[in-house]
């Protein structure tokens, strides 16, 4: 039994998701506002958070940012908005995944399971990887840059480990989606935004990356 927090202002959607996710075996709590959700998460952290973007008061983007400030709980956005702009903004705010309403409960459940696998430290044991001043210790779940720990989310960490495991080789976006998110098909923007967020943390000049490079049309590569 794992706990899911559903932050959704529409009472009917919240109730329906609550019932359906409980059927899937989750312990679910609902919050009608971002403020309430943040309070609940601080008091009694859930393992996963589902958040709507259009919320009264504090909006979904700000809610994600504040959740992210507290810890690295996997956050899935469940929104009726499917503008690239909104998706990218939500992922950049710190969300791990994004689904557009209406989403089938089975699919939502599959995504939550994939996130859970990822966040239970299921990363394959690989030796400590160093690349310049960058040091990744998969077992310790730590990334250090010039000796100082870099705070990364679990998804970012999995992404970095996956790239480090295949350092010097190109991984396509689809391969990364499969290995990191566990999706057979999915939105490649997930990968792009997470790579962008990682660069902000591990590169000196994120606009001109030295470690994590893009190979146009092919994918991403972490230099040895």
């Amino acid at each position: 039994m794992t706990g899911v927090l559903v932050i959704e202002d529409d009472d009917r959607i919240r109730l329906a998701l609550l019932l359906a996710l409980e059927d899937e075996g989750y312990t679910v709590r609902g919050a009608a506002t971002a403020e309430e959700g943040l309070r609940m998460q601080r008091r009694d952290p859930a393992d996963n958070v589902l958040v709507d973007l259009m919320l009264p008061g504090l909006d979904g983007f700000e809610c994600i940012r504040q959740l992210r400030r507290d810890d690295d709980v996997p956050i899935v956005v469940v929104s009726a908005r499917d503008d690239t702009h909104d998706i990218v903004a939500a992922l950049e705010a710190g969300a791990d995944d994004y689904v557009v309403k209406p989403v089938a409960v089975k699919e939502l459940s599959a995504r939550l399971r994939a996130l859970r696998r990822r966040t239970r430290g299921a990363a394959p044991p690989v030796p400590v990887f160093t690349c310049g001043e960058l040091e990744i210790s998969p077992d310790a779940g730590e990334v250090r840059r010039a000796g100082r720990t870099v705070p990364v989310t679990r998804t970012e960490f999995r992404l970095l480990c996956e790239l480090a495991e295949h350092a010097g080789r190109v991984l396509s976006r689809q391969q990364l989606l499969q290995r990191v998110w566990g999706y057979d098909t999915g939105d490649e923007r997930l990968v792009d935004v997470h790579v962008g967020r990682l660069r902000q943390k591990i590169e000196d000049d994120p606009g001109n990356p030295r470690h994590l490079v893009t190979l146009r049309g092919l994918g991403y590569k972490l230099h040895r």
Partner: protein
Amino acid sequence: MRRLGLRARVSAGFAVGALLLAASMALVSYELTRRSLLDERERTALRAAYFDAAVVRSGLDTEQPDIVEVLRSLDTGGNRRPLLHRGDDWYGRTADTGLTAAVPQELQQLVRAGAPAVQRVQVNGQPTLLVGVPLAPSISYYELTSLRELDHTLQVLALALTAVAIMVAGSGAALGWYATRHSLRPLTAVADAAQKIAAGNFTARLASTTDPDLARLSTSFNDMVDQLSRRIERDRRFAADVSHELRSPLQTLAAATSVLANRRDRLDERTATAAGLVADEITRFQRLVNDLIELARSDQAADRAPVDVVVLARRTCQARRLPDTLVQAAEDLGPSWLVDERRFAQILANLVDNAERYGGGPVAVRLSRQGGTGIVEVDDEGPGVPVGDREAIFDRFVRGRAAHSRAAGDGTGLGLALVAQHAAAHGGRVTVGDRPGGGARFRVELPGALP
């Protein structure tokens, strides 16, 4: 014939106007000058002829006068040549009596009748003034004054006036060009702003002006752009609101039907059937909403990036539990196509779904190229598409005849319309024909997919 631009026409108008004005001025002044010069010349010639006639008359008053000698004694300078007509004989200073032919008969009769006369004639191709003075009943004195100098002067004058007229016309054209550049500058600004707006920059406006003639143009242009951008923004927001308002209740329905589906075995048969119908229709409604939202975005351009189309095609088949050996890639396909991945994936998915729904399942998904154009073909072994329906099936909400007879199609009626729209976004098209051996063959051409 291509029409000239406004500026060229205005300049040409200025030039023609200036030319007309200058030409008429030149003509009038030429004519006035010519007349006054000729009149003066005529008066001079007349005076000289009378004087010479008087000298000749007195010379003839002697016994046995030598007419030629008398004529030679006249002080006529180089311009005037005297002639005397007595009886039927002509006398001149020299034997050159070719001059006599230049004296018209009418003038001779007039002078013989006792009236002095003046006429302009051509002598050996030279303009000449002919003055006839009667001396006695059978003696007439003629004097021919060459007008060559005058003619020359007039030619120079005509040349000068023509040159001036041409220069004035040229200046007129230049003035027109210059004036239109200034007066058309606001139009250039309008064109620039309109171009920016067409390119999607709705913040472009005309600078406000205090010029009363231009203020109306810029105000109404800016108002028009304001209205246009407000309307586009409203449409965009409406589409976003509609999609949000439709999707939110669908989420409730999707989650609630999943709860119902989980308890199907606890429902009595009738309720379970009803719950199943609701679940199926909700699935169809979801697809319909997604397709409608996709169609509403028809104005967006294709967002091209390199895509491994073979992998994408295999994944499309796998996702539908079809063998990925259906995918046949031509050998010269290249590693990737430059297409909009989302749209390309929908083209494949909708064609394969269409083949499954109405064609008994796809039998081949072929990827090939023709030059730079990427070609996707999906074959089925169904009843095919009648020739008369081959255009209409790409319209919205049109389903194949087979679907009507089956009455239970779970398609949205938008799948092929979306394929056509996605192909058009790439500058390409979709067609349907017969598959050799029976069935339908859908063919999508995507220009610019390959270098």
